[in-house]
C-alpha cells in the first residue's frame, strides 16, 4: 500500500508548478527534503508500474525476462560514466572506469543473450 502515498505527492507537485516556470531556467536550488521526496515518488511509482507490467509476462518467457531486466539494471552505467568522465580525483576516476566496464558487461551481455533466447522462440521457417 505504500505506493499510494506517492500519488498525492505527485499530484501536488504537478499542480503546484505553473507552466511558464516549468520551461524557464530556474536557478534556485531545490531543498533537500523535496528533492528526496521527488525521487521517492519516482521510485514508488516505477515499482508499481513494474509490478503491473511484469505480472502479465507469461512463465514461458521468464528466462528472457530475467536476462533482459539484467541488461536494464546496467543503467548504473549512467552514474559510472558521469563519475569516470568528470576526472575529479584519480582514485574516483579509476573506480568509475571499473564501474563502466562492469556495467557495460551487464548491458551488452544481457541484451545479446536475451536476443539469442528470443530468436529460439520464433517459428522456424521450413
Amino acid at each position, binding site marked *: 500500500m505504500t505506493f499510494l502515498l506517492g500519488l498525492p505527492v505527485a499530484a501536488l507537485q504537478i499542480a503546484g508548478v505553473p507552466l511558464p516556470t516549468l520551461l524557464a531556467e530556474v536557478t534556485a536550488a531545490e531543498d533537500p527534503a523535496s528533492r528526496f521526496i521527488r525521487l521517492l515518488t519516482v521510485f514508488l511509482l516505477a515499482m508499481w508500474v513494474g509490478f503491473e507490467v511484469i505480472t502479465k509476462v507469461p512463465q*514461458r518467457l521468464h528466462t528472457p525476462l530475467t536476462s533482459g531486466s539484467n541488461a536494464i539494471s546496467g543503467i548504473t552505467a*549512467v552514474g559510472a560514466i558521469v563519475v569516470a568522465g568528470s576526472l575529479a580525483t584519480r582514485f574516483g576516476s579509476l573506480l568509475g572506469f571499473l564501474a563502466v566496464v562492469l556495467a557495460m558487461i551487464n548491458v551488452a551481455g544481457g541484451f545479446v543473450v536475451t536476443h539469442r533466447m528470443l530468436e529460439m522462440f520464433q517459428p522456424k521457417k521450413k
Partner: protein
Amino acid sequence: MSSQAWINLAYLAASMLFIVAFKLMTGPRTAVKGNYLGAAGMSIAVLAACCESPVMERVTTHGAWPLVLVGLGAVIGGAIGATMALKYPMTGMPQMVALLNGFGGAASALVAGAELWNATAAAKAAATPLDPWTQFAIATAVTGLIGAVTLCGSLVAFAKLEELPRFKQAWTDPNRHWINLSLATATLLVLWGLCAFPSSNILFWLLVILGGALGCTLTMPIGGADMPVVICLLNSYSGLAAAAAGFVIDNSVLVIAGSLVGASGLILTAIMCQAMNRSLLGVLFGGLGTTTIASADDVYAGKVKSASAEEIAMLLEGAGRVVIVPGYGLAVAQAQHAVRELAAALEKRGTTVEYAIHPVAGRMPGHMNVLLAEADIPYEKLREMDDINPTFPETDVAIVIGANDVVNPAARTDPKSPIAGMPILDVDKARTVVVVKRSLSPGFAGIPNPLFAADNTLMYFADGKKAILDLTAAIEKG
C-alpha cells in the same frame, strides 16, 4: 531550455522505452521488439550521460580524454559481455545471469564509492565536512551495502551452479545463524556509522567488505534446488542497487530502471517460492528440513510395474494425445533433441504431442522452455501448468522424463507430506503414465512418489536419453 533539461528529457525517453520494453515481453514476437527498444533506451541514456555537465566541463578543459576513458571502458565491457552472451550454453543460463547480476551490483557499489571519494576530496578542499544523514550519505551507504551483497551472493550462486567442488555442498554448519546474525549486526552498525560520519571512506569500504561477507554466508547454506529463488532475488537486488545509486547521484532514470528490475525480480521470487511451496524466509534461512516421511518400501512394495521400450511403443501407437513432462534431469542428459525426434515420430502417426512445463522445471524461472526451444520445439506446444492441468483426464499417455517432485500426487492428497499444497502437474489423471527414470530414488524433496506405484503408471527404468532413443526406434519400427 538549458542543456541539463535536454539531458533530463533524454533520460525520460529512456525510462519510457524501458517500461515499453517490459510491456512487450508478453509474447515471443513482441519481446524481440521490446529487447531492441530496451537497448535503444540504454543507448540514449548512455549518450545523455556523456553530455552531463561534469563530463562536458572536463572536455572543454582537458580535450577528449574523459570521453576516451569512458569509451574504452564501454568497449572493453561490451566486448566481454557480448562474448559471454554468445558463448554460454543454454543449460548454463542461470550461471550467466548470476554473474551478470553480480557485475551490476558491483558497478553500483563502485559508483557510490567513487562519488563518496570525490565528494570527500571536494569537501576537504573547501574545508566544509559532509553533513551527516543527508540523502547522499544514506544512499551511498545503502548502495555500497546492497551492491556488495549482490556481488558476493551472485559469485557464490555462480560457483554453486557451476558445481565447483568447494561450493557443491550446502553449508550446514549449525552455528551459521549466529555467524549471519553477528555479521548482520556489524554491517548495520557500520551502515549507521557511515550515515553519521559520511566523510569516512574507510567506513564505506568496511561496509562493502562486511556486506560482501554477508552475501557469501547468506547464499552458501542454500541448496541446489532453491537456486531459482536465489537468482530471482539477486536479480531484484541488482536493480535495487541501481535505484539506490540513483538516489546518490540524484538521477531519476537510475531510480526508474532500477525499481523496474527490482519489481521484476521480486515478482519472480514470489512465483518461484509459491511453485516450490516454500516461504522466502524458509529458503533463505531454513535449509532443507529433515522431516520424517513414509518409508519408500511401504509406498512402493510390490506395486511398481516396469515396462520395456517395445511395450511402451505399442501403447504410444494407440494414443491420440500424448503429453511430455520434462524435468531438469532431461536437460542434464542433453535429451531435448531426442525428445523432439520422439514427438516427430508420434506426430507422423497423427498423435497430438504437447509439453507440460512446471514453473520450477530447470534452474531458473522459465529455464526449461528455453532449453526445449533451443531443440526447435515450437513455442505453442510448451504449455504452462495451469493451462494444461485440466486436459490430463483427456490425455492417453503422459510421459514423465527426469521430473519427480513436481508430479508427486502426495502434494494434493497427503496433508502431512513436506510438499503438501505445492502446485503439481496432475499427470496421475492421465489414462496411462510412463515414467522414465533410472531408479526409484527420490527427488530434491527426498520423499517417495506414490505416482510410481499407481495402477495406471508404467516405470521405464533407463538412462533418459538412451530411453527416448530406444523408444523412438521402437515406434518407427512398429
